[in-house]
C-alpha cells in the first residue's frame, strides 16, 4: 500500500536553529516521485522540490536541503539557520506510476520558528 508518514505533528525551534522534518514513505513501485510542499498561514501550497526514485543525490537550495535514502524509504527536509518566515505546515508527498498522476500526501508537520 502507498503511504506517506510524517511522524512529527508539530515542531518548535528558536530562530537560527537548524531543524529537520522527517518523511517516511511506502511504495511497491520502483519508479516514483517524492515532493515537499510548504503551506504558509495564507494557505496556498507552495511547491519546494520533486525528486525521482532513481536520483538519490542530496539536494541543497539555499538554506534548504533534502536527504533522500531509498534504503530507509526516507526523504527528510532540513532547514538551516531557520527564520520566522519558515513558519508553516510542510507536506511530504509521493506519486507513483499508474496512479493517474495522483499524489499521496502526508498529514503535514507544523513548524513554528520562535523569534
Amino acid at each position, binding site marked *: 500500500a502507498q503511504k506517506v508518514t510524517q511522524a512529527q505533528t508539530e515542531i518548535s525551534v528558536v530562530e537560527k536553529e537548524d531543524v529537520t522534518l522527517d518523511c517516511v514513505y511506502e511504495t511497491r513501485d520502483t519508479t*516514483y516521485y517524492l515532493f515537499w510542499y510548504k503551506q504558509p498561514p495564507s494557505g496556498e501550497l507552495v511547491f519546494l522540490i520533486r525528486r525521482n526514485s532513481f536520483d538519490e543525490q542530496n539536494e541543497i537550495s539555499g538554506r534548504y536541503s533534502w536527504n533522500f535514502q531509498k534504503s530507509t524509504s526516507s526523504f527528510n527536509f532540513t532547514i538551516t539557520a531557520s527564520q520566522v518566515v519558515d513558519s508553516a505546515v510542510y*507536506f511530504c508527498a509521493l506519486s507513483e506510476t499508474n*496512479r*493517474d498522476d*495522483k499524489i499521496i*500526501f502526508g*498529514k503535514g508537520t507544523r513548524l513554528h520558528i520562535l523569534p
Partner: protein
Amino acid sequence: SQTIHQWPATLVQPVGSPLSLECTVEGTSNPNLYWYRQAAGRGLQLLFYSVGIGQISSEVPQNLSASRPQDRQFILSSKKLLLSDSGFYLCAWSGQSGRMDTQYFGPGTRLTVL
C-alpha cells in the same frame, strides 16, 4: 508562465444552500486538474480529478460534484451544503497524464458553512 486562479477567496454559506467554486488555469493546455479539501488543522483530501474536458473521477462519495466545461476550467459544486463541507478548498493542476508531474496549487477558497 502558468498561473492558477480560484474564486471566491472566502465564502460563508448557510446549511442547505448551493455551492459553486471555480478554478481556472492560464498558460498551459490540457492540464490535469484536481480539487482537494483541507479540514481545519488536518491534511489534504483529494475530492476529484480530471484528465480532460468532461472527464471527472471522484475519490470520495459525498454531496459534492465537479465539472470541467472547458479545458482550463474546473468547477466544484453542491446542491445542498452540509456543516461538514466547511474547509479550505484547493485546486491544483499538473502536466500531461502519465508523467507524475508536479501539482501546482491555487490560492484556495475558505468555505464556512453555518
